[in-house]
């Protein structure tokens, strides 16, 4: 287990009504795709992908969903929280022409990843999807980077109208990509899988995590027993194709299965 560190929130940026980015002055040394476990010791410790990571600081971008994230949203700059990590697998860093397909609060981790891809010399296209304009994140952040960005909303209120998958299908049919990465709702990734049969890819998954160190088994994915906190959260095509639960069900805190 990476040593726990208790640290002040350095900066908080409100991205949307219910998405905030929390930045910490700490050398995390994470790789893109990895996550941290974050707690305030008030009940709950939750996984969040790293949305930015430099030598001096790192960030997570969080959507307010339930009890824990609501309490997190009440914290101020200077408040302490406690983190451990970074944990898990990271994205393969391609040097070629790649397509990133992201949806919702899972897009910001591509900000960190895009920077690493650019350093490696990759040619990066990003589809940044959300349901509607006010839920769309990081558009301004991605503009700073030397990548091609396609913003898209289900209702067309920002960027193109449609789903990220629609757009992905469209541009894949026109242009050749060497590698595809997806991070977003599982059903989005499932739909995407059907339209990109011949491209190599990696998907970032989410499952209910408790220990994050590969011991409690809460995050194993059927049928091969991949522990998403250790062998994931980024899984390569080879492994994704074996998953029988992908897009079908996931397990809650008790281990009970729930259909998507």
């Amino acid at each position, binding site marked *: 287990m990476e040593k726990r560190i*208790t640290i002040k929130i350095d900066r908080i940026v409100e991205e949307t009504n219910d998405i905030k980015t929390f930045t910490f002055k700490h050398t995390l040394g994470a790789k893109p795709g990895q996550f941290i476990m974050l707690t305030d*010791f008030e009940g709950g410790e939750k996984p969040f992908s790293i949305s930015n990571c430099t030598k001096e600081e790192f960030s997570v971008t969080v959507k307010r969903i339930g009890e824990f994230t609501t309490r997190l949203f009440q914290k101020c700059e200077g408040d302490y929280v406690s983190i451990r990590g970074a944990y898990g697998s990271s994205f393969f860093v391609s040097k070629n022409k790649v397509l990133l397909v992201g949806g919702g609060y899972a897009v910001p981790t591509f900000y960190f990843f895009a920077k690493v891809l650019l350093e490696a010399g990759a040619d990066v296209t990003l589809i940044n999807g959300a349901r509607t304009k006010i839920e769309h994140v990081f558009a301004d952040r991605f503009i700073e980077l030397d990548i091609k960005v396609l913003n898209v909303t289900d209702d067309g209120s920002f960027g193109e109208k449609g789903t990220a998958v629609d757009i992905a299908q469209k541009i894949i049919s026109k242009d050749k990509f060497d590698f595809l990465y997806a991070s977003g709702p599982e059903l989005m990734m499932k739909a995407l899988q059907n339209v990109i049969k011949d491209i190599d890819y990696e998907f970032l998954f989410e499952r209910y995590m408790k*220990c994050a160190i590969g*011991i*409690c*088994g809460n995050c*194993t994915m059927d049928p091969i027993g991949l522990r998403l906190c250790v062998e994931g959260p980024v899984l390569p095509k080879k492994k994704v194709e074996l998953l029988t639960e992908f897009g079908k069900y996931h397990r809650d805190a008790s281990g009970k299965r729930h259909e998507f």
Partner: protein
Amino acid sequence: MQKSLKTEFLGRPITSPLVLSAGVMGMAFSGFNISIENGAGIVTSKSLTLEPRMGHKGPVVAEFEGGLLNCMGLCNPGIVDGLTEIDQFKKCSDIPIIASVFATNTIDFLKLTSHVNKSKADFLELNLSCPNVFDEFGIPLAASLEEVHNIVKAVKQISKFPVIAKLSPNVYDIVSIAKAAESAGADALCMINTVGPGMLIDTKMVKPVLFNKFGGLSGSCIKPIALKLIYQTYSAVNIPIIGMGGVTYGEDAIEMLMAGAAVIGVGTAVHYRGIEVFNKINEEIFEFMEENGYKDLNNIPRLEKL
């Protein structure tokens, strides 16, 4: 592995003496799959309860020098869903699986046993290490001779499968408890469960690290305690013992055998050395046997009994 560590447990042939311990890798059939693929000879399910349990809020684990604290809180999907996972595992594998169940009284243990009887499990393990308070002195279930005897006896009367009693190390006299289980008909013992419990404090926020405040100790540092209790118990009973507590390397497994364990449980080491830990330890046991001229597992000597 073409090398063989074949042995048997309660009359069942097994390909490795290593047992995936209860609660480690959870209760999903796929968790059992990956463990046997990596060399486990027996797997144990998460302890199942009558109703689903979400477990404690996080943090549920905390690491310290030589060990791990956990307060998972017996999270499990309940006996019905849990047995479904066991059955699904058994569809594709003939590796023995132990169904671990947990309750706080005889009636519930009997209900759980009836459920397990209908499953494809191979063994039934009673997690008697209930931390619940049975009297004002905070004595755990597994510390009451009468409770242990009564529960095991009742369960034995109806269980279709051999019954294993899992004991807590946090008792004064584990030998008497073990004997109570044996005389009640237990087919085997499993020991030890986590030690303590213990606590860690975050000094910046002045808060216990675990939300549940306290959690049981597992991992390398509990090995000496496990070895001592297993050795004492081995000296006094005639049923086989699944020995566990801190086993991380082949050497640790050999120590367990020498202390009197029949087979060896591996838990926290899955964190230390990855899920490949079973194959790694198998390999190390084999090397030890080669170096020291032991032809097979049964040749490995035990300590003289106390």
